[in-house]
């Protein structure tokens, strides 16, 4: 008796019902997955993020007709704007023929999820945003906020653009960057390594090398 599988103990009717349930479950999962694949095949989302800053110039720039037209020309279907502390609110719109669907929000606890589902990221020049996006291997355009007083942030964006890890743009010329960009030419950012620093610290303190 004990060697029998639990399933055998179930009577016929219940067993049928159980199998049925299971099939339906798996079927639903399948449909859902198919839908997701279909969605992701057709859906190419551009995610714009300003982090915790106020960057109305960028939000305005991506809400212009010419910018959205460039996105559409490049095959993008959705534009999602994270506007942070900004005052300017974009206009939401459904996907229509000849234009992208637009949506926006202020803050989110899961920016990483949006980054992951994006086909292109346009971000302010915060180092956190930049590196989080590069880590995920997403194509990135960094827009420098010209209104900031001491703009050391632009140094990082320009250096990484020079090394071809991302594109650098100003709000006014963003649509041209979209038109001219060649995302295939971007180089992936190599993972950093904290072990050299750890070695130096250990050696300085007189600990033996591992």
């Amino acid at each position, binding site marked *: 008796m004990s060697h029998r599988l639990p399933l055998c103990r179930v009577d016929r009717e219940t067993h049928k019902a159980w199998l049925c349930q299971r099939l339906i479950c798996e079927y639903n999962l399948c449909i859902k997955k198919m839908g997701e694949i279909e969605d992701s095949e057709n859906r190419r989302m551009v995610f714009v993020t300003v982090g915790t800053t106020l960057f109305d110039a960028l939000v305005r720039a991506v809400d212009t007709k010419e910018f959205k037209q460039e996105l559409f020309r490049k095959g993008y279907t959705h534009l999602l704007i994270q506007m942070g502390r900004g005052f300017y609110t974009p206009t939401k719109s459904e996907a229509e023929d000849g234009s992208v669907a637009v949506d926006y929000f202020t803050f989110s606890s899961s920016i*990483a999820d949006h980054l992951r589902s994006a086909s292109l990221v346009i971000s302010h020049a915060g180092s956190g945003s930049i590196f989080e996006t590069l880590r995920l291997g997403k194509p990135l355009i960094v827009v420098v906020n010209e209104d900031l007083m001491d703009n050391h942030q632009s*140094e990082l964006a320009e250096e990484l653009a020079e090394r071809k890890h991302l594109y650098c743009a100003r709000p006014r010329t963003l649509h041209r960057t979209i038109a001219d960009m060649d995302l295939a030419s971007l180089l992936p950012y190599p993972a*950093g390594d*904290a072990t050299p*620093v750890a070695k130096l610290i250990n050696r300085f303190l*007189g600990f033996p090398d591992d």
Partner: protein
Amino acid sequence: MGSKDETCFAISIIIIIIGLIFIAIVRVIYVVYRTSKPLRPKSPKPLSTLIVLGSGGHTAEMINVLSALQKDRFMPRFYVAAATDNMSLQKARVLEDLLADTNGGKVVSAKFMQIYRSREVGQSYITSIGTTLIAIAHALWLMIKIRPKVILCNGPGTCIPLCVIAFLFKVVGIRWSSVFYVESIARVKRLSLSGLLLYKLCIADQFYVQWPQLQRKYPRAIYVGCLICRYFSFG
């Protein structure tokens, strides 16, 4: 007669003061000279470590550095963040919990503390004087309590009072703390204000930069390349 005694007394006081100043100057020169010389302990022991956390990217970078260090060499660990910074200590707690897990459940002592900030963004300079004094007093209190042998910091303004006090402790002989400063990856051509202060005043024992341009500009800095391997995002 009386005035002669008074003059003698005054002269001896002046001589003593000049002597003390002279000793202090010599001691400071010696401390600056010894700073940046590696330690040569006979048998290295675990070192109490103060870790200064700052908002956002600073803490993320610090956690990357901590992940690469052997935890049994740097203990007990004290984490300090600004009083208005809510996320950083949380992130540090997560790291310490992870360590406790991989350590087989053995909890290594770690303490998490908050420190008053000298100045908030946009605060008026007049009130900043008062808050800076409070911040310095609070930093002094923390440093007297902790007296760390190692200080790790990477940029937030909160590290300045702590590092300056560490330097004074070296001069006075209360504790010799080795100060390690890692300039942020976001600093490519210019140092941050904290970095500049610690570099110019020779307060940091070792000054690390993540871009070669900075090392060329500041020769006493050490280029260590990019440190970010994993970006710890909590949301």
